[in-house]
């Protein structure tokens, strides 16, 4: 039963992508919409038996086609993979509501958009399940190429340039990763992440391989100073695409970094490298926040906020404790929900105003109250105010730093929270500003579709609720901690 459900997670989106592509252009809107809705809701249902299995039996593996390691490919489900699969299913379904509104399946735009979107979705599910180094490479390429197609889909020059820059860097990054995989295979004769970890020693060649793979993945997850492609790509992509890029696509490469670091090489003494990664994260927090403060466009502010918030996910390397790991995963989950909500609200605003220039947002709180409310609620989680999910993630990281007397890391976490408050309030102040001369916002062209606003609000609410409903998630993580984690 769980095997079929796992296969469904990957093949349902892929089959749906083919089906949308194969539909005759005159088939009307019903069949296309039905296929898309099925593939958006399907993962939520398929994840139920998988969750039950993990809850009762603990982590489990699946050998594809019955071939065992080292030759066969193994899928592995543990707490981390399951939580990210849930995040992807929930964010994907709700962002999909907005995508359906802006890219109806019966139109030409929709027929170009949905196959790529579903390919991205299937690729990400496969990536999260895979425990095979080369399979991870293939799925990561699938995710990246589909994401680049989605950024460029409307053919606007700014988006095309951003997509091109992303593509060049991403291709270089995947070659670095592949080089590392080749070296590791040469050393161990296996591609299985766990099996390779058991045979590898921290000698020169394995460490070179790990560094190559990490460098490639740091480019793909846009960690400072390798983030240069992210703001333009996320800020110029179509609304729903920005949401899924910031919520999921950058996170899956961080997921692979965690897998390599904590599962493949858990016993290596890499404190210097861990501190270096932590410092990069700290610089990213300051740099991203300060640049977010100086942006002119709402979507660019949110994109730079992503650069900053990804920095927190790097702090788990120097802290390296169970609490820090729980905090980082919790931060990842709540940031995914909140950032998707923010990008969706920004897309709604962009749609109704025709611009997202921060100066033109005045009086918007009265014209688009729901979207402004979404921005505020998601902002609460981004800032890390209690009782949101973002607060809990940062609080756990802070606790981990406190336990280890890591004063520098505590300063970084607290200062990063204050800086994010500054840019969130800059957005809210702009929308709630009512200059007498200009009156209410007259530039408004059309109201955004109601389902899009409701879906964004639902995501923002979930980011807040994550602060209350933490017990089962943290319990699951507690049971699925990486090996050798103090």
């Amino acid at each position, binding site marked *: 039963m769980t095997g079929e459900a796992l296969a469904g997670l990957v093949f349902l989106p892929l089959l749906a992508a083919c089906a949308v592509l194969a539909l005759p252009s005159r088939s009307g809107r019903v069949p296309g919409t039905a296929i898309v809705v099925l593939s958006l809701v399907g993962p939520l249902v398929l994840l139920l038996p998988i969750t039950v299995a993990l809850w009762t039996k603990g982590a489990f593996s699946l050998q594809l086609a019955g071939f065992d390691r080292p*030759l066969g490919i193994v899928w592995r489900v543990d707490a981390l993979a399951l939580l990210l699969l849930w995040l992807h299913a929930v964010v994907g379904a709700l962002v999909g509501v907005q995508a359906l509104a802006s890219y109806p399946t019966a139109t030409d735009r929709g027929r170009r958009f949905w196959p790529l979107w579903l390919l991205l979705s299937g690729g990400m599910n496969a990536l999260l399940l895979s425990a095979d180094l*080369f399979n991870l490479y*293939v799925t990561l*390429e699938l995710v990246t*190429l589909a994401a*680049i*197609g989605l950024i*460029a889909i409307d*053919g*606007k*020059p*700014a988006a*095309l*340039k*951003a*997509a*091109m*820059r992303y*593509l*060049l860097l991403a*291709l*270089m990054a*995947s*070659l670095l990763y*592949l*080089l590392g*995989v*080749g*070296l590791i*295979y*040469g050393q161990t*004769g296996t*591609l299985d992440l766990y099996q390779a970890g058991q045979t590898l020693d921290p000698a020169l060649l394995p460490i070179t391989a790990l560094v190559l793979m990490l460098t490639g993945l740091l480019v793909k997850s846009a960690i400072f100073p390798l983030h240069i492609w992210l*703001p*333009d790509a996320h*800020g*110029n992509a179509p609304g729903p695409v920005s949401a899924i890029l910031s919520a999921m696509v950058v996170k899956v490469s961080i997921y692979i970094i965690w897998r390599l670091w904590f599962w493949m090489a858990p016993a290596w003494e890499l404190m210097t490298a861990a501190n270096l990664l932590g410092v990069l994260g700290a610089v990213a927090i300051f740099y991203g926040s300060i640049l977010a403060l100086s942006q*002119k*466009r709402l979507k*660019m502010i949110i994109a730079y906020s992503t650069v900053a918030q990804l920095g927190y996910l790097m702090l788990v390397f120097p802290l390296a404790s169970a609490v820090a790991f729980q905090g980082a995963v919790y931060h990842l989950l709540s940031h995914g929900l909140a950032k998707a909500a923010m990008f969706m609200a920004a897309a709604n605003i962009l749609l109704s105003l*025709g*611009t997202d*220039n921060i100066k*033109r947002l005045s009086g918007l709180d009265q014209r688009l109250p729901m979207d402004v409310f979404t921005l505020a609620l998601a902002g609460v989680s981004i800032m890390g105010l209690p009782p949101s999910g973002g607060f809990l993630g940062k609080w756990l990281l802070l606790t981990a730093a406190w336990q280890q007397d890591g004063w520098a890391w505590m300063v970084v976490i607290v200062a990063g929270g204050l800086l994010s408050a500054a840019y969130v309030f800059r957005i809210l102040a702009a929308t709630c500003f009512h200059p007498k001369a200009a009156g209410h916002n007259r530039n408004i062209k059309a109201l955004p579709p109601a389902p899009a606003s409701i879906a964004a609000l639902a995501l923002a609410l979930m980011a807040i609720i994550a602060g209350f409903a933490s017990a089962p998630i943290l319990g699951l993580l507690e049971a699925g901690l990486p090996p050798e984690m103090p």
Partner: protein
Amino acid sequence: MNSLTLYVMTASALFGIGVYGLIIAGHLLRKLLALNLMGNAVFILMVTVAGPFEHGPDPVPQALVLTGIVIAVSATALALALMVRLYRETGRATLGDNDGDEEVDDG
């Protein structure tokens, strides 16, 4: 110099030329060629990893290289399509500095 050293040195040289080209070249087509050169360097290294040993070469890295080539071809095709579209929209096949904000900004 044995053949192993020769392969590794060729791969390193190709990779270096690729990195240089990717950074220096302005035209996107040159950047793509440089990337493909880097890809070939990685593939050569992976074929080197495959042997031949006493009982013959290891087929797994060669299969990986085949998959890698397929991925490289599709990525290059996507990049070429993007480049052509970019040229049609902007009249240039380079990544200039004036991008991002201005074009969407209504001022």
